[in-house]
């Protein structure tokens, strides 16, 4: 087939802005975010759906952007860590990670935070055990997880109280 090296023009909505990108269908969402849109807050760790560093929100739900084609994002609402804070005001999950010391080197943090926003929204942050289960797709090599779990529970409480 001759069409296999084709490029396509994609309208991709990221953080509320629609970008027109010309790309090959084989390009992964994470690479398009980082290399083409300059949104390097989303990290690339394992590239094999294991570590969660590349987690972004697609239509409000956590997704590993190393295992999604950018073209699959057509017509969807992609949100990255860059869009979470409101100016200088941190999102409650970001604030809780800071308050509870939920990070050390910070490499896993964007993915942890995005995964946490999603799991809190889905009502999974009921207790320590459920938070640990819901975060099992996110690896951290520094913290030992204790403070991350505390941060998620603290943020969930705050978000719930604000509802």
């Amino acid at each position, binding site marked *: 087939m001759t069409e296999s090296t084709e490029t*396509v023009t994609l309208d991709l909505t990221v953080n509320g802005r629609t970008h027109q990108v010309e790309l090959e269908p084989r390009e*992964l969402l994470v*690479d398009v975010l980082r290399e083409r849109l300059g949104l390097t807050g989303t990290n690339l760790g394992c590239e094999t759906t294991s570590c969660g560093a590349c*987690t972004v929100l697609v239509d409000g739900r956590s997704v590993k952007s190393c*295992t999604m084609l950018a073209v699959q994002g057509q017509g969807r609402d992609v949100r990255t860590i860059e869009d979470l804070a409101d100016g200088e005001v941190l999102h409650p999950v970001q604030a809780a990670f800071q308050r509870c010391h939920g990070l050390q080197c910070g490499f896993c943090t964007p993915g942890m935070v995005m995964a946490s926003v999603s799991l809190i929204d889905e009502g999974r942050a009921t207790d320590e055990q459920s938070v640990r289960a819901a975060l099992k797709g996110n690896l951290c090599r520094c913290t030992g997880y204790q403070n991350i779990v505390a941060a998620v529970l603290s943020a969930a409480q705050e978000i719930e109280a604000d509802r």
Partner: protein
Amino acid sequence: MTPVPFAYRRATSVQEAISLLTEHGEEAKAIAGGHSLLPIMKLRFAAPELLVDLGGIPDLDHIRVEGDEMVLGALARHSDLELSALLREEVPLLAHTAGLVGDCQIRHRGTLGGSVAHGDPSADLPATLVALRATVVVDGPGGRRTVPVDHFYTGFLETALAPDELVVELRVPRTGDAPWGYQKFRRRGIDWAIVGVAYQSEPGAGGIGLVNMGPTTLRAAAAEEALRAGADPAQVAALADQDTAPVGDASGSPEYRRHLARVLLSRALAGRNSS
């Protein structure tokens, strides 16, 4: 880790997807959640020339009651099944199993249809569908047909689907609060099952599906028969690995897997579920 180049078409209906697959034959592949297909394409174990994206087809992610069955659209995601209050009430075994697939992010992308069509014997949902005696609803150029799940898996990663056929729906009986159990044994929370066992007591005298005990998802037929004949749970569980053919690999030997199947079935029969 980028796949080799391919062409991409986004189908807007089941019919359009089938036409594209028919037109391009063996070189084309459907993609739903992409969580089985993309990893192997990234490793370049698969290199389809055309991907037909099912993700934009509307109204194929339904979860609804029809008579004494639940009807589930192929594009229903694992997390949709897991969190559906209706499914948790009507077929709790299926909702529970969906919640054990991978992690939250994987469950937000992976679909029921993709899991069924991929034909991986280490997948969780197919074993539960065997226990439930589900029916796979298939659509293709010749129209719709139904395939009992027992006739769907024909070999390792092989199914009864023609290259231009799609899974469109799954039909499962409404079991309500009849006893069930799902046991998934793995070393870490994110791992696939080393062995898994799905047990559902109704309808009839019960169904038992096995994960990773052979080249396909298997039914524990001998154990089911003992159950129907009124054998006690220990006798039933002892038959879990009869007529299976588990492989040996880094996760365990065939003997270890046989032992696990028996232990896990005894737990599942007691209504114990792994979390």
